[in-house]
C-alpha cells in the first residue's frame, strides 16, 4: 500500500516536472510547477519530514508561484513571442 | 589557546552581519556607506594578519561552532593553505572596495548604491567562509551566498547587456549549485556525516564507492562551472567583461580561484586522493580539459578586440594553469597552483582595475583605443604593464615563480605534455599582453584620442592598482617567504 502510494507520487512528480518543462505557455508551466511543489510537499510528508513539507507547501506552492506569475505578467506570456 | 582561536569565525561572520546592518547607514547617511563598508573587511584583514604564525603545529586551526565537537556540529578549519587564501581574499576585496568608491558611483546610483555595497560585503564574507569551513554542507551554504551576490553584482548596472550576461551566468550557475547539493546528498547517504575530516576517515572504508565516485564527479562539474573550467566557461567572458570593473576584479581574481580551491579541498581533504582508479581518471580528464583551457583561453584572448573581454579569456586560460597544478599531484605542482592563485588574483584584479580606469577616465573599452595611452595615463599604463609581465611570467614577478613550480611539479609528475602546454600558454600570454603594451607605449594615439583636459585617474583609484601590481613584484622577489611553508603544507596533505 505504502509503496504503491510512493510510486504514484513519484510518477506524478516526473510527469508534472516534464509537463512544466515542455509547456509552451509560461503561465501553464507555472501552474503545473505549483502542482509539482504540492506533490513534492506530500512526498516530504511521506518521507517523515513534516518541516520540509510545510516549507515546500508554503514556499513552493505559494510564494514562488505568485512571484513567477508576477514576473510573467511583467513580461510576455508565451515562449514563441521571443524574437 | 588565546583569543585568536575565535578569529576565523569573526573574519567570516563580521562582513556578513555588517552587510545586513549597512542599509541602516545607507538610510541615515548615504555618503558614509563606502567608507563604512571597508571597516568589516579591514577588520577581517587585521584578524587574518594577526593569525599569521598562529596556526598550530597539527596543521590547522579548528573552531567548533556552538561548542559541539566536529561530527555533530559545524567546524571551521583553517589550515595554512586556507589561511593563505583567506589573506588573499581579504586583501583583494579591500582594494577592490577602495577602488569602487569613485568608480561605481558613476554607474550605479541611489538606493542601488547601498545594495552594491551590501552585496559586495556579502560576497566577500561568503568567500572567506567558503575557504574557512570544514563542513561540506556549510560549504554549499556559503557557495549559495557567493553565487547569489555575484549574479546580482554582474547585473547591478541594470542595462540590457548586463542583465543578459547575469542571466547567462544564472543559467549556468544554478544547475551547478544543484549538482553540488546532489553530490553532498550522495556523500551523506554513503557515509552518514558531513564533516570533512570525518568524511576522509569514512570514505576510506565505505562500501558505496560507486555513489562516492559519482558524487566526486558532480562536485568537479559543479565547482567546475563556478571555476569556469574549460568546457564550462561559457558564462565567464560575458559576465566578467560586462560587470563593473571592481566586480570583474573580484570575480576573476577571487571567485574563480575560491571555487578552484573548493575542488582542491574536496580532492585532497575529503576524498584524500584517488583511493580507486576512477578518482584518478576523473582527475586525468580534468587535466586534459585544463590543458585545453590554457590553449583555448590564450587563443581566444589574442582574438579579442575588447580589453575586458581579453582579460576575461586570459582568466579562462589561467584557471587551466591552476588546474594543471592540482592534477600534477605533486607537492611542487600544488604549491605552484596555490601560488598561482595569489599571483593570478593580484595580476587579474590589477588588470581589470586598470581597464576600469581607462573606462572611467576616457570611456575606452577597445584595445585599439589604447594606442598611445601612456602619454596621458602613465601611472595606469605602467601598473598594467607590470601586471601583464606577471601574467606572462617574466622572472622577477610572482607569475614566474608560480609557473616555475607548476612546470616543476608537472615534470616530477611525469606529465611532459602538460609542461609543453604550460610553455605554449606562456607564449600565448606574451602575445596578447605585449600587444597591448606595444600599443600603449610605442604606438602613436589616434587623432584626438588622448587630448583634452582629463589626466590620469584619481589617486584613490590608482592606489589600489599600484598596490596590486607592486604586490606581484613583491611576492615574486620575496617568494622565499611563502614557498617553503606552502611546500610543507602540501607535503602534509599528500
Amino acid at each position, binding site marked *: 500500500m505504502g509503496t504503491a502510494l510512493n510510486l504514484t507520487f513519484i510518477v506524478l512528480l516526473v510527469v508534472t516536472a516534464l509537463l512544466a518543462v515542455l509547456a509552451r505557455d509560461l503561465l501553464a508551466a507555472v501552474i503545473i510547477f505549483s502542482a509539482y511543489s504540492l506533490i513534492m510537499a506530500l512526498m516530504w510528508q511521506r518521507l517523515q519530514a513534516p518541516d520540509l513539507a510545510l516549507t515546500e507547501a*508554503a514556499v513552493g506552492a505559494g510564494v514562488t508561484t505568485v512571484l513567477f506569475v508576477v514576473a510573467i505578467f511583467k513580461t510576455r506570456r508565451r515562449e514563441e513571442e521571443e524574437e | 589557546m588565546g583569543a585568536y582561536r575565535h578569529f576565523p569565525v569573526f573574519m567570516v561572520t563580521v562582513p556578513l552581519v555588517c552587510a545586513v546592518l549597512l542599509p541602516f547607514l545607507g538610510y541615515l547617511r548615504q555618503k558614509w556607506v563606502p567608507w563604512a563598508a571597508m571597516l568589516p573587511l579591514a577588520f577581517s584583514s587585521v584578524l587574518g594578519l594577526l593569525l599569521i604564525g598562529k596556526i598550530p603545529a597539527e596543521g590547522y586551526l579548528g573552531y567548533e561552532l556552538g561548542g559541539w565537537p566536529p561530527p555533530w556540529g559545524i567546524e571551521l578549519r583553517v589550515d595554512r593553505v586556507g589561511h593563505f587564501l583567506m589573506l588573499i581574499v581579504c586583501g583583494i576585496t579591500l582594494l577592490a572596495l577602495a577602488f569602487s568608491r569613485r568608480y561605481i558611483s558613476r554607474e550605479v546610483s541611489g538606493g542601488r548604491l547601498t545594495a552594491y555595497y551590501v552585496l559586495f560585503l556579502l560576497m566577500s564574507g561568503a568567500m572567506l567562509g567558503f575557504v574557512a569551513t570544514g563542513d561540506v554542507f556549510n560549504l554549499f551554504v556559503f557557495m549559495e551566498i557567493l553565487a*547569489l551576490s555575484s549574479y546580482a553584482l554582474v547585473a547591478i548596472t*541594470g542595462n540590457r547587456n548586463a*542583465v543578459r550576461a547575469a542571466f547567462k551566468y544564472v543559467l549556468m550557475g544554478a544547475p551547478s549549485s544543484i549538482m553540488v547539493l546532489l553530490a553532498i546528498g550522495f556523500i551523506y547517504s554513503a557515509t552518514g556525516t558531513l564533516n570533512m575530516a570525518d568524511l576522509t576517515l569514512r570514505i576510506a572504508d565505505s562500501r558505496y564507492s560507486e555513489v562516492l565516485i559519482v558524487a566526486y*564527479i558532480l562536485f568537479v562539474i559543479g565547482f567546475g562551472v563556478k571555476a569556469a573550467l574549460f568546457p564550462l566557461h561559457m558564462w565567464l567572458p560575458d559576465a566578467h567583461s560586462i560587470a563593473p570593473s571592481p566586480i570583474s576584479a573580484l570575480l576573476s581574481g577571487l571567485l574563480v580561484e575560491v571555487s578552484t580551491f573548493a575542488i582542491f579541498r574536496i580532492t585532497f581533504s575529503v576524498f584524500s586522493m584517488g583511493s580507486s582508479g576512477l578518482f584518478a581518471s576523473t582527475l586525468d580528464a580534468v587535466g586534459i580539459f585544463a590543458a585545453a583551457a590554457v590553449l583555448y583561453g590564450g587563443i581566444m584572448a589574442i582574438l579579442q578586440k575588447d580589453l575586458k573581454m581579453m582579460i576575461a579569456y586570459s582568466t579562462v586560460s589561467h584557471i587551466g594553469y591552476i588546474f594543471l597544478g592540482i592534477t600534477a599531484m605533486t607537492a611542487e605542482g600544488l604549491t605552484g597552483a596555490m601560488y598561482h592563485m595569489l599571483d593570478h588574483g593580484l595580476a587579474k584584479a590589477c588588470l581589470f582595475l586598470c581597464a576600469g580606469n581607462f573606462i572611467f577616465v576616457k570611456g575606452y573599452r577597445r584595445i585599439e583605443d589604447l594606442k598611445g595611452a601612456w602619454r596621458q595615463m602613465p601611472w595606469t599604463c605602467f601598473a598594467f604593464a607590470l601586471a601583464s609581465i606577471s601574467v606572462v611570467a617574466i622572472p622577477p614577478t610572482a607569475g614566474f615563480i608560480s609557473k616555475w613550480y607548476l612546470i616543476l611539479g608537472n615534470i616530477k609528475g611525469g606529465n611532459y605534455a602538460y609542461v609543453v602546454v604550460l610553455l605554449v600558454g606562456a607564449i600565448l600570454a606574451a602575445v596578447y599582453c605585449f600587444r597591448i603594451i606595444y600599443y600603449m607605449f610605442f604606438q602613436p594615439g589616434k587623432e584626438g584620442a588622448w587630448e583634452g583636459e582629463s589626466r590620469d585617474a584619481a589617486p584613490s583609484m590608482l592606489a589600489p592598482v599600484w598596490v596590486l601590481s607592486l604586490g606581484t613584484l613583491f611576492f615574486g622577489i620575496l617568494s622565499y617567504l611563502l614557498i617553503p611553508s606552502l611546500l610543507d603544507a602540501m607535503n602534509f596533505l599528500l
Partner: protein
Amino acid sequence: MISLVFIAALFALLLYVVANMPPMGDPDNPTNSSEVIERYLEKGGEETHADNVVTGIIINYRGYDTMGEVTVIFCALAAVLAVLGRERRGRIYAYVDRSRVPSSVIVRTMVALLVPFIILFSVYTILHGEISPGGGFQGGAIVGGSMIVFTTIFGLLESSQRIPQRLRFPLEGSAVITFFAVGALGLAGGGNFLTFAWPEIAGNLQPSLVVWLTVLVETGIGLGGAMVLISILFSMIREEEEIAVVP
C-alpha cells in the same frame, strides 16, 4: 543537442547512483548507523532542550548553516533590490489595481476575514517550532504567502499601507542580526560562537534559557523571512509610472 546529451548523461549517472545507493529504511545504512545521527536522536532532546529534534539540529547543532541560509535569504532580497529597485515610499502603483476586473466585495471580505487566521497560524508555527514541526522559515513563508494573497486582492497601495516600508526596512535583517546577537551572547558567556547558553553563568537557568534563545532565533527568522518575501513581492509588483499617490 549538446544539452540533451548532457542531460541524458546526467540522468544515466543519477540512475546509476540510485541503483547503488544504500537501500531506504535499512537500519545498517551509513546514515542510520553513524554516531552523528545516534547522538542527535538520543541526546538531542536533553542537549538542545528542544522537543522537536529537527529544530534542535537546525538551530543548535548546525546553527551556523542556518545563519548562512538566513543570509542567503537576505542576499536574495539585496539582489532583487539591486536589480529592480525598491518601491518608492509614498508613491506606489501596481498592475493589480489596473486590472480590468477589480476584485468584488465578496472576495475582499473573505480575504480580509481569512488573512488574520493565516497570520495567526504562522505565529503558531513560528513559536511552536521547538515543540512540533515548523519554525521560523515555515512561519515566515506563511506570513509572506498571506500578504501575497492580500496584495493580489487589495492591491499594492493598500497592502503597502498595512505593512509600510518603514516597518519592513528595519525587520528585513532581523534574522541575521538575532542570530549574530545570540552567537555573540554565547561568546560573552565563555563558550564558542553560537553556543546557546552561558555555561559559566546560567547554572540552573540553563534549560529555560536555551529554550528562550531558540524561540528568539525562530522569531527573528520568521519576521525577517516574512519581511524579505513581502519586500521582494512589492518590488517586483511595482510599476515605474506613478498613477496613484499616497498622501
